[in-house]
């Protein structure tokens, strides 16, 4: 399905977001062309940080480097959360600037869904480890968590190519 709002005039909520002063600031409409590359770089850095921590943690849950105690990952989670906040803020900025493009885009919707699923799985895995849940189930959830976050990266990249 194709949506072509164009956002030439503020026709309702979708365009009013994109044409807001914040949206215009992100896309360079205010004459400041640095906001977009800075937001994009911050988004990339945040993503690598979150994905890095997700990969390192889930590899451990799946049995790699077993000598590292799970609790030792607490400090890494702090870094992971920092990366996530960086992603959230930069992602909201980018979304504001290109609201009419992203909000109806299937790859964007799938990306957000995979991030939510990935986040729920991370929480569930942590809870399972604390409560001594069946190890095989935890490992299964961990593999699903890795797949979900990897899918989020893939769909995020595809946003530049697919509608």
């Amino acid at each position: 399905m194709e949506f072509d709002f164009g956002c030439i005039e503020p026709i309702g909520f979708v365009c009013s977001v994109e044409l807001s002063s914040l949206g215009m600031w992100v896309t360079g409409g205010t004459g400041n062309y640095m906001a977009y590359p800075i937001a994009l770089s911050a988004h990339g850095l945040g993503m690598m940080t979150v994905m890095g921590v997700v990969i390192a943690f889930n590899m451990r849950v799946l049995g790699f480097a077993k000598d590292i105690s799970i609790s030792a990952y607490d400090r890494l989670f702090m870094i992971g959360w920092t990366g996530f906040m960086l992603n959230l803020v930069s992602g909201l900025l980018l979304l504001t600037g290109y609201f009419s493009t992203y909000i109806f885009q299937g790859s964007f919707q799938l990306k957000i869904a995979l991030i939510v699923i990935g986040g729920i799985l991370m929480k569930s895995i942590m809870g399972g480890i604390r409560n001594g849940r069946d190890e095989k189930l935890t490992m299964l959830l961990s593999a699903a968590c890795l797949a979900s976050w990897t899918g989020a990266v893939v769909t995020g990249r595809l946003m530049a190519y697919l509608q």
Partner: protein
Amino acid sequence: MEFLQPTFDWLGASWLGVASREVSWIFVAAETAHFIGLSILFGSLLVIDLRVVGFARFINMKAAMKFIPIAMVGFAINLLSGITFIASNPERYGPNIAFQWKMGLVLIAGLNALWFYFGEHKELSQLADGEDADFRAKVIGGLSLIIWVVVIILGRFMPFVE
């Protein structure tokens, strides 16, 4: 980076260059692989370097070292996908200032990693959980993290400084 241009041109004329221009999904797949490779590399470095600098000093150092081959897998994915980018458009990358700085920093990161592996690796593997690494090792670990953060930022800036 003019001295590398003949190599870039050779890559561009190779089967990889031709394929990456003619088959639309190859470049997209390489971009995705580049992001995932860097995530694997950066995640592994977070475990190792944050342990070395003392931020996550209760990570078992010997076990953290098991992430070194994983980091190398991530780097290999990035190297191959990065070569595909250059092959797809050999004229684009050489003159790009962000690309030049990025490659320079990757080279420094590589030398830093060699210093870490051959200079500190053995001694660090003996560290007990919670024990601080020596100052020189902390400098190497800190440098590694800073360099890779800048590499990631420069990579994202490349399309904007053409």
